C-alpha cells in the first residue's frame, strides 16, 4: 500500500485580531487548521505569552514566583518595565487585583490611573484584567477602558453577569474584549452571540473558556478548547472563531503542587522546579488544545514555553 498523508482541510478560520500599537503590536490567530497542524493549513501567527503583573503587591503568590519580582512588584509601572525590558515580554497583562472589595477595594479612578501610568511606561501591548468580581469589574473596566483609549488594549473579562457595560466600554474606546464563561462550550457560544448582538464585532473578541491547572480539571479546559476549535474550523461556526485565551498563571500558582515545600511533600521533589514545571506543562497543554494567547507568571516557565512554541511552528 502506498502512503498518502491524511490531510484535512477546514472550511472555517480563526479570526486574527491585533492588539497594541506601532511596531510592538501583535497579531494572534488566523489559522485555518487545528493547533500547529501546519500540514493541514496555514498557521500565520504564533501564540503569544503575556507576563502577568498586578496593581498591588502579590502577597498571595507562592515564593517561587513572588521572589522573581521582589524588586519591582510593589509598583505596577516598575513591574511592567521590568517585564518589557529585562524579560523581553511580548505583551503584559495588568490584573487590577487591588480593586477587589476584599483586597483593598481601590476605586475605578485609582485603577484608571495605574492603567495610564503603565501604558505611558511601556511599548508592548497591554491586557487589562479586572479582579474577577462581577459587579466591581463592571465599574473598574469601564474606567480602565477610557484611560486606555487609543491604545488598542485587550479588556477583560466580560462574563454573563456583567458583560453589557464592559462591552459598551470596549466598544466606545476601541479595545479588544475577552468573553469568559465557565468550562461550558455552549455558554461560551451563547456569550459570544449576546456580545455580538450588542453590535460588538466578533473580529475584536477573544474567548476565555476558563483555564484550569494541571491536576485540577485541566482535562475539562483542554477538551472545551479542542471542541471550540473543531466547531470554528470544521463546522465553520462564526461565533466560535475568535482566538482563545488561556489565563494560566492564576490557576497554577495556588494549587498545592506549586506551594507545598519539599519538607512537606518529600516525594514531590524541589518546590521551585515543581512550580515552574507545573505552569509550563499547563501552558503547553493549553497551546496544544488551541490557545492563542497565554497569561503566565514565572520567567523560566515563560522561557520554556516559548521554546516549545518555537519547536511547534
Amino acid at each position, binding site marked *: 500500500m502506498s502512503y498518502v498523508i491524511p490531510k484535512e482541510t477546514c472550511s472555517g478560520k480563526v479570526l486574527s485580531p491585533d492588539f497594541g500599537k506601532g511596531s510592538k503590536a501583535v497579531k494572534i490567530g488566523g489559522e485555518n487548521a487545528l493547533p500547529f497542524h501546519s500540514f493541514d493549513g496555514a498557521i500565520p501567527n504564533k501564540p503569544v505569552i503575556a507576563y502577568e503583573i498586578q496593581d498591588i503587591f502579590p502577597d498571595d503568590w507562592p515564593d517561587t514566583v513572588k521572589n522573581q519580582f521582589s524588586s519591582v512588584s510593589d509598583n505596577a509601572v516598575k513591574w511592567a518595565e521590568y517585564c518589557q525590558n529585562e524579560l523581553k515580554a511580548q505583551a503584559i497583562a495588568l490584573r487590577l487585583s487591588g480593586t477587589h472589595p476584599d483586597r483593598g477595594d481601590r476605586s475605578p479612578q485609582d485603577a484608571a490611573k495605574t492603567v495610564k501610568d503603565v501604558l505611558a511606561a511601556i511599548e508592548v501591548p497591554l491586557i487589562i484584567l479586572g479582579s474577577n468580581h462581577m459587579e466591581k469589574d463592571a465599574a473598574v473596566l469601564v474606567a480602565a477602558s477610557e484611560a486606555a483609549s487609543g491604545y488598542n488594549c485587550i479588556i477583560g473579562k466580560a462574563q454573563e453577569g456583567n458583560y453589557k457595560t464592559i462591552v459598551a466600554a470596549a466598544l466606545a474606546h476601541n479595545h479588544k474584549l475577552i468573553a469568559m464563561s465557565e468550562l*461550558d*462550550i*455552549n*455558554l461560551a*457560544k*451563547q456569550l459570544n*452571540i*449576546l456580545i455580538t*448582538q450588542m453590535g460588538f464585532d466578533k473580529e475584536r473578541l477573544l474567548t476565555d473558556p476558563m483555564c484550569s491547572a494541571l491536576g485540577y480539571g485541566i482535562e475539562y479546559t483542554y477538551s472545551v478548547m479542542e471542541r471550540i476549535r473543531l*466547531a470554528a474550523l470544521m*463546522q465553520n*461556526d462564526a*461565533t*466560535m472563531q475568535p482566538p482563545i485565551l488561556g489565563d494560566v498563571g492564576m490557576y497554577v500558582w495556588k494549587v498545592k503542587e506549586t506551594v507545598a515545600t519539599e519538607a512537606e511533600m518529600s516525594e514531590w521533589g524541589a518546590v521551585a522546579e515543581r512550580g515552574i514545571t507545573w505552569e509550563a506543562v499547563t501552558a503547553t497543554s493549553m497551546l496544544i488544545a488551541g490557545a492563542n494567547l497565554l497569561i503566565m507568571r514565572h520567567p523560566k516557565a515563560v522561557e520554556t514555553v516559548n521554546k516549545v512554541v518555537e519547536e511547534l511552528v
Partner: protein
Amino acid sequence: MIIIGEKISIIAKKVREAMMKRDPLPLQELAERQWKEGANMIDVNIGPAEDGGDELMAWMVRAIQEKVPAPLCLDTTNYEALEAGLKAHNNQWGRPLINSTSNDPERFSILELAAKYNSQIIGLTVGKGGLPADAEERAAIAADIMARAAEYGVPLEDLYLDPLVLQIATSQDHALKVIDAIKMFQEMNDPPMKTVVGLSNISNGCPKNIRPILNKYYFIMLMNAGLTAAIADAQEMTEAIQEKKLVDDVLAGKKIDDANKMAEITKTLDVIMNKTLYAHSYLEM
C-alpha cells in the same frame, strides 16, 4: 406510539406541595388534563422518597386512578414505594410500567417486582459510575439488562429499553447517539425490543420558548427511528404529530411554504444532529 404524561413529578412545585399535603385535587386535575391531551399512561414521579414512599405512592396511584382510567408509570428508585404502588394499581385500566431498573446493582431487584406483579418495566441503559459514551455502549448494557430480565422471569415483551436522553445544552452529541441506540435496541430481539425515552430532558436547561420546539422535533426523529413510547408533555406530542409531515419534508430535503417554520425546523434539526453547536440563541443565528 404510547405517550406517558410527564406532569405529575416531584420536580414541579405544585405537585410537590400537593404530595406533601396529600391534596388529591391538583394531581387529579393534572392527570385528567393529560389524559384529555392524549396521554395513554400517566407517569407518577415521587423522587427517591426515602421516608414513607410506600404510603405516598399507594395514595397517589389510588387518587389518580379514581379519576382517570389509565395505567400508570411508577417512577421512583424506592423499592417499597414501587411495591406499594403496584399493589394499589388498578390493572383493569391496563398494566402498570415500572420506571426503572438499570445496570446499577442497587436497581437489579426491581425486576423482581415486575415479575411478581406482572408489570411492565423500563430498563435504563446506564450502569454504575459514568454515562454510556455512545449507542454501542448503551446496546451492550441493554444486552445485560435483557439477560437479567430473563433470569428474573420478566418476558422481553414487557421490557422497555430506555437509552437515557441527555440535555442538549450540555451533552449535544448524545442526541444523535440516543437515536442510534433506539434503532440498535430494536434489532436486538425478534420481535423488536420496545423502547422508551424521557423526552423532555433533551431541552432541560434551555430557555422556555425553545423547549417545546426541541421536544417536538426530537420526538419526530425518534418516532422515525421506531420509538415505542415517550414520557413527555402530551399536549406537545399531539402538536408534534400534527407537524410531523413538515419535519419529514425538511428531512427529505424538500422546501416548505412557511419560511419561518422552515428555518426553525432546519436550525433545530442541525442542532439535534450535532451539525451546529448548540447555544440558547441558536434560533436567532
